[in-house]
Structure formats: C-alpha cells, structure tokens
C-alpha cells in the first residue's frame, strides 16, 4: 500500500473494502471482539451482555425516495445491533456539517432522526457537532454509535456457520440502492422506487422467539446480497449455493436494474436481513419472518456448503450455474 491512495473502491462494499478492513484496521486494532468479524461487538460486563456498533453515513443525496440521512443514521446502527440479536437502547450521534449548509435542512434531518429513534424505542443520549469549511464536506455526515443488550441465550455469530444450514432473506433485494441511484442520477421512472430503510430489531425479536437457535444474521447493505454472502463465506470458510428463482426482487427494481446495467444482488439494502439457520428450523423461521410486516416477502434462497474454495454459487433460472461474486469497485452503469 506504499504509494497507494484511498479511491472510491475502498468504500464500495466489495473485496477491496473487505481487505482494507482486514489488512489495515484490524491489523492495528485487533482484539478478540473485533476479530470475530460480526456487525457489532459483543462484550460482557458484570450482569449484562452488551452490544456496541458504530456506523458513518455519507449518503448523497441527503433526501431520497423513502428516507433521508437522518432516519438512515438511526436504522443503520440499530440494525447492526439487531443483527446480534440485541435490543437497542441508546445512540450517540456525531455530526460533521459543511459551512453554508441550510439550517432548515439540518432541522429536517434531525426531526427525521427523532421520529426514527422514537419508533425504534432508542434514545439519542449524547452528540457532537463539528463544522468544516465550505468544500471540505458534502453538506452533512452523521456517525452514530449504538448500545444494546442481548439476552444470555442468544448466540448469533458468523463463527457458527456450518455446511448444510439454510440461507434466508427477509424480503426483496436492491430497493435502497436503486432508489438512491435513481435520485442521484436524475433518472426518472414511471413509478417511484422507495428505499427500504427500516429498523429490523422488531423482526429479529419475533424471529428469535420462534427459532431461538438461529445461527447468524446480517444486513446486506453496501455490496448487497452478493457482497455480504461472500463476506460470510470468506469469514466462516464455507461455500454457499443459491437458487436464483427463490431470490425475491421487486419487479420495478428488476426493471430499473436492467435499464441501468446493475445487478440487484450487488445493490444495497437498508431494511433487509440475511438469516442462516439449521435447515430443520428453516420453515419455522420463514413463517415467523413472513408474519412480520418487514418480512412479508421473506424466502429460503439457498444452502451453506462445504467448499474449500469458498465460492458463492447460484443455480440460474435458466438451469445453469454461475458464481455470485463480490462487486469490483463501485457498481458502474452499462455503456453499450
């Protein structure tokens, strides 16, 4: 990395980002909690199991169909806690504001944060504000840190993933990424595609009540389903085989992806989760997910396999097979 500089691919949710985390951050900050590679850190303090997670939000545009950076900064961190099976309790929020940013817009964002926090039953208990000169930021960046508690009997971790287990998703893939991209690039579709931005801990609580021995949960944000499953396969040292026909994608999202040359499997979600569980429990878990408002379109999409190559593969609708790869760089539009 001698003369290399940070470029956009380091934030793209692909293998480059994964390698940066492992080879730079984890190298210097290594400890047993961090090294588990989960969405949030789990620590035990006397009498309590605490989960802590942090998430920076730099989305452009700040307001997008179905959400804004304020609600997203609550949902993003709450979901990282939820993926550990935790009940989120508290958030802190750090704001980096750019000189010249409209106060009315800032208030809209904070108002949206407060609504999202109230709905998720979390309190923002501390904050920080810094202002940088015009041109040194992009309006507003928000970093939130969350604290939650997790009960004694819950043990969700990528370290528990084994061959033979089932892979489920809670709903349609790619909604958030397409909603944001359509706004960012001024692409107008006949029907507006909305971001799925939502807090998932309620869904997770219902899932754990029905199936206490879920193996792991993760939210497929940047990098989408494909990136997240590759991360799981690489961390757990397993392969994953998917059935394309079972993966839910909303028709308008699929159509927009066709038009833009995107793949819904590489496109970000902000209100969906991936669950892995023992196959004997998969149907029970699926029923619990489908009974919740945020899991109505849940589906069993594949199996964990024993594969030293750690490939995420897919049986295509057509009847062939292919790899489902990490995205290289940022997802780019079709040119021809």
């Amino acid at each position, binding site marked *: 990395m001698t003369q290399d*500089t*940070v*470029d*956009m*691919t380091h934030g793209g949710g*692909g*293998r*480059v980002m994964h*390698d940066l985390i492992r080879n730079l951050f984890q190298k210097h900050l290594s400890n047993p909690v961090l090294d588990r590679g989960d969405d949030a850190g789990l620590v035990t303090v006397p009498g309590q199991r605490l989960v802590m997670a942090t998430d920076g939000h730099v989305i452009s545009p700040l307001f997008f169909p179905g959400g804004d950076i304020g609600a997203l900064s609550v949902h993003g961190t709450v979901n990282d806690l939820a993926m550990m099976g935790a009940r989120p309790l508290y958030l802190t929020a750090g704001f980096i504001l750019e000189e010249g940013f409209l106060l009315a817009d800032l208030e809209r964002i904070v108002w949206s944060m407060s609504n999202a926090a109230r709905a998720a039953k979390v309190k923002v208990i501390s904050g920080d504000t810094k202002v940088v000169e015009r041109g040194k930021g992009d309006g507003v960046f928000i970093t939130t840190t969350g604290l939650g508690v997790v009960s004694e009997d819950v043990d969700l971790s990528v370290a528990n993933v084994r061959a033979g287990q089932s892979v489920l998703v809670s709903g349609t893939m790619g909604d958030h990424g397409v909603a944001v991209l359509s706004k960012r*690039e001024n*692409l107008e579709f006949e029907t507006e595609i909305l971001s799925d931005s939502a807090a998932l801990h309620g869904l997770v609580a219902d899932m754990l009540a029905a199936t206490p021995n879920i193996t792991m949960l993760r939210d497929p944000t940047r990098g989408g389903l494909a990136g997240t499953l590759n991360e799981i396969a*690489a961390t757990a040292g397993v392969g994953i085989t998917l059935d394309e*026909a079972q993966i839910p994608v909303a*028709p308008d999202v*699929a*159509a927009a992806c*066709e038009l*833009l*040359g995107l793949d819904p499997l590489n496109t970000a979600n902000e209100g969906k989760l991936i669950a892995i569980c023992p196959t004997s429990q998969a149907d029970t878990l699926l029923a619990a997910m489908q009974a919740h408002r945020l899991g109505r379109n849940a589906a069993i999409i594949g199996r964990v396999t024993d594969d*030293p*190559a*750690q*490939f995420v*593969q897919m049986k*295509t*609708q*057509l*009847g*062939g*097979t*292919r*790899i489902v*790869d*990490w995205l*290289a*760089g940022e997802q*780019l*539009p*079709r*040119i*021809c």
Partner: protein
Amino acid sequence: MRYISEFRDPKLAKTLARAIKLAAQPNRDYHFMEFCGGHTHAIFRYGVQDLMPPNVHFVHGPGCPVCVLPVRRLDDAIELACAHDVILCTYGDMMRVPGTGRRSLIKAKAEGADIRMVYSTIDALNIARDSPDRQIVFFAIGFETTTPATAVAIKRAQAEGLTNFTVFCNHVLTPAAIGHILSSPDFAPNGPARIDGFLGPSHVSAIIGSQPYEAAAQTYEKPVVIAGFEPLDVMQSVLMLIEQVNAGRAVVENQYTRVVTRDGNRKAQALVAKVLALRDSFEWRGLGAVTDSALRISNDFAAFDAEKRFAISEKRSREVKSCECPAVLRGVKKPTECKLFGKVCTPDNPMGACMVSSEGACAAYWSYGRQRMPETAA
C-alpha cells in the same frame, strides 16, 4: 418484467437445449464467435454453456468497447484530465482500466483530476452549461450503438454555441473488425484457431442494420446470425448457426427481429454521417491497425474535436507485460490461458481491460465462471 422474462424462460430454454443437441452432429465440433461482450456475459451470467452439448464452443470476440481501446488512447485521456485541467466526462466502465504504468482514471481522480462518470452525453453537455469557465471533454468510446449519442451532443453544442465542450472521439466500427478477424492468419484454414460462424451484434445492428455483414458472410463463407442479448436469443441463434453450418450455407440471418431490420436506423445513420467521418486507420487493442474501422469528428464540426483543441503529447504507451488481452480479444486464447488470470489479475486488481469491463471476457470468466476452474480458489 414483460418483454424480458419471456426471453429467460427455463422451460423454453430446455426445449431449445434439446433442439440444439439434436441438431449438432456428434462427429464434429462447432466454434461460434460471439462478437459482443454483451453476449459473452449473457452466456456466463445465465449459465448458457451448461445447456450446450460438449461439441458446441463459444469463441469470445472483440466486442467490448473498453477492451479494444488501445492503451495509448487511454493514456491520452488521462493526460487530458491531469495536464490540461479539463473536466473529463467518461462512461463508468473506463474508470478502472489500467493504462501505461497501471495508471487509471480512477487513480488520477483520487490524485485530484476532475473526472466525472456520466450515463450519457447529455450529462456531459449539462456539466458544460453549468461550468462555463471550465473546458469539458467527453471521452467518447464505443461501437455504433453509442455513436449517435455522441453525434447528438456535438450537434446540440454547436446549436447552443457552447465553446467549452469538446469530444475525444474513439468510436469504432463493427463490420471492419469482423472482416479483419476473418482475414487474419489466426483463422486461416490451417491456422491456430477456428470460427464456424458468428453470433452477430445486437444493439450495434439496431443502428446499422444486418446488411453491413453480408459482404463478410459471403467473402469468407461464414454464417452470421444477429442475436439478441437475452439467453434464449443466444440459444436460438446457436441453433440457427448449427443449421446453416450443417446445410453448408453462409448467409446473414436475423434472430433479433424484434429490434433489428436489414436497413437499421436510417435517421441515426444520417446524423452520424453528418457529424463524424471515417478515419483511414485506427489502432485496436488486440487487432492492431485496422483500416476504415473508426470515426473522427468531421471537418464541419472540428471546433468540437478535443484532439484539435488540446495539444496531446507524443508518448510511449505500454500494455502490462504478459497480459494476454490482445490474444483474448482476437479470440485465439481463452482468458484461462493467460498466466496472470486469477493470480495477479482479478477484477479488484486488473492488469488488463478485459478483466475490468462489464463486457470483458476475463471478467465474465472470473466473476461468473470460476467454479469451473478449481485452481482459482480463494
């Protein structure tokens, strides 16, 4: 998704697969070049190869605009962005292609050059209108599919009197490339590689029609079937090619009738003919210099030609050593026959354009097909 899912129907795919198996004579092999990277990716993304009998082979052609652009032209674009202080507008696929010394547009951007990814020439025009004090250069690449959009932008810029907008024109032409491949020693009767027919370009043919391929089909006695980009299009076209080969015919047929006609889009052709002009010769990565194979900006619109407005320096451009992109683009080597493939060259660390582009053959092999190559395991 109407008009798309029909062309990915698993039941029809099975029926076609059976028909192909029946038609393919077991005592011979069939080698079909799919010209377009779009076809290569459809074949891999949907697993079409898995539905083919073992004696039907796909040979991947040069139809990836990012891939065939020679390093020199990319180096020139990087120079425009870095040394001439312009806003360089480019299609996204170009960003990560390595130039000489593995410099790329995305690296130049990280170092401070003003390089913007656009979806269309109209976006570049908007940037030019919004930044009257800056020079905007549109990095135009692509086959006949994208040339009309470039021509439209130049015409609009002229109509509006925009003085800060130019185009760095790298548009190339498909029929010239097909003729060049078929006349090369690689595919001579006793040459190292074989082509029994072509899956012809789909979107390109929407513009130019199917007629321009007739000369090559006749001269070189190779069947051409214009094929759509969906998996069933590809499969049906393979069946049509096998039937032509079996019957000893070599004509241009059109499978993609829902989009392509024999004459193509005359309006677009007229527009392109007005704004752009034929270059005597142009260098392609892999194919070398090909006569009458590319377009420049015509003299009437010279004010919008970036090559005339900016003094682009002479330079000694170089491919990455032992990168087999040129041979892959000619269809004489498979990506897996490159020493760099999957070892030092991956989509995250590309050594050549074919590993970068969403239409490149190496990227298709790696991103969709490496389960068939156990040696590439993580």
